[in-house]
Structure formats: C-alpha cells, structure tokens
C-alpha cells in the first residue's frame, strides 16, 4: 500500500512520462472526482484545467515525483479559493442559462446520481474523504496525506460520513467494510 501523497520521493533515474500522455489519461478522472464533489461539470472542468496548468508549468519536477497522479488530485481537491471563484463565475453564467442541468452534468444512471447527490449534502471534509476513499480507492493513510489531516481524523470522518449516507440512502452499513 502506498503511504505517500506524491509530494516526495523523486525518481531521478526513471524516464518521466510526457505531460500530454499523463494529461489525456488523468484529466477526465480528475474532472469526475471534482464533479462528484461539486455537481457541476463546467466548474469541475475549469478547476481540473487549472490543476493541470499548474502541473504543466512544473512538469520537469512533478513528472519525477513518485506519484504524479496523487499530486494532481491533492492540488485539485484542495484549491478552495479557486473553487469559490469558479463557483461565482458559474453562478453568473447560470443567470442566463435556461436548461443548465442537462449540459452541466456527467450523465449517470439514476441510482448512481442519487448516491453522488447524497455525498454532496455532507460537510465538505466528509464528502472529500468519501470521494477519495471510494472514487480514488485511497486508503485512510492516502486520504490523510492528500487532505493534510491525521489518519484518526479521516477514520472518524469516514465513519460519520458513511452513517449519514446510510440514513440518506436507506442503505445498510457493513461494519466490516473497507477500513
């Protein structure tokens, strides 16, 4: 299991992956992660683009990190100031938009859309923890590193988040789940 969050362990001896290859593979997945948290495809794409722009500007270094994938997810999910600015721009656009939802969503089956809608009602930290744990398949240690929190905090947030989701979705929790 990986314990780092991509910020260390540069690999000077390996051949870095070209940015374009990395970007084309990872960008849609990062958009999906942000869409799961925000519910807006336009905002998710804008924020993901900003993240990859930062990555490209420092690609010589980032490409040599042990896990560039983790680096972009950490930047994407922690850019709160940018979240706010993007939201404000989005809301401005919405004033003139008539049928926004159809254009601004990644299309999902109703059951899956209902799950993500429920996740978005959680407090931000709980939603981030749930998204990283399930969407990215991150361990508690990896979530903790990505969000800059203690593993105990992440375990607690995961527990509380799951309980709230179980109530919202009418689902059963499995106490032997992935912790």
């Amino acid at each position: 299991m990986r314990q780092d969050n991509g910020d260390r362990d540069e690999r000077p001896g390996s051949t870095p992956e070209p940015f374009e290859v990395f970007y084309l593979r990872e960008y849609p997945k990062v958009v999906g992660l942000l869409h799961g948290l925000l519910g807006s495809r336009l905002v998710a794409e804008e924020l993901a683009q900003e993240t990859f722009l930062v990555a490209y500007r420092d690609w010589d270094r980032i490409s040599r990190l042990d896990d560039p994938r983790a680096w972009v997810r950490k930047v994407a999910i922690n850019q709160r100031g940018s979240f706010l600015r993007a939201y404000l721009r989005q809301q401005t656009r919405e004033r003139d938009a008539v049928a926004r939802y159809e254009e601004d969503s990644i299309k999902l089956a109703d059951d899956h859309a209902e799950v993500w809608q429920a996740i978005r009602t959680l407090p931000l930290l709980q939603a981030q923890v749930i998204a990283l744990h399930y969407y990215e398949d991150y361990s508690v240690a990896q979530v903790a590193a990505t969000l800059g929190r203690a593993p105990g905090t992440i375990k607690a947030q995961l527990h509380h988040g799951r309980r709230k989701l179980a109530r919202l979705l009418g689902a059963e929790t499995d106490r032997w789940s992935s912790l």
Partner: protein
Amino acid sequence: MNLDDRLRAASKALKESSVAQIDAASRLPEILRRTGQPLDRPEDHERIPQPAPQRECSR
C-alpha cells in the same frame, strides 16, 4: 446492496462516465498556450500521444 457496494458502484460509474464523456484533448491546446508553449503547428497536434492503457490502482 449495502452502502459500501453502492458507493463503490457509483464511484466506478462516475469514473467510467467521466472517461467516456469528457473531452480532454480539446482543452490541451489552451493549457499549452497559457504556459507560453503553444501547439501551433498541425503536425504537433497529430503527434500528441494517446493515453496508455488504464492501470487500476490498488490500496
């Protein structure tokens, strides 16, 4: 289906739908342009490599 299974299924569906529905290539020229290194020749666009096969990450 219990909660864990629903969360994993919804996550898998979102990731697959994102890969299928999001057009990454259309935004790449803007990223390169904003860093001052535009892809300004058609032959450069054609040489953009395709993504490698997806690797599943493990916990």
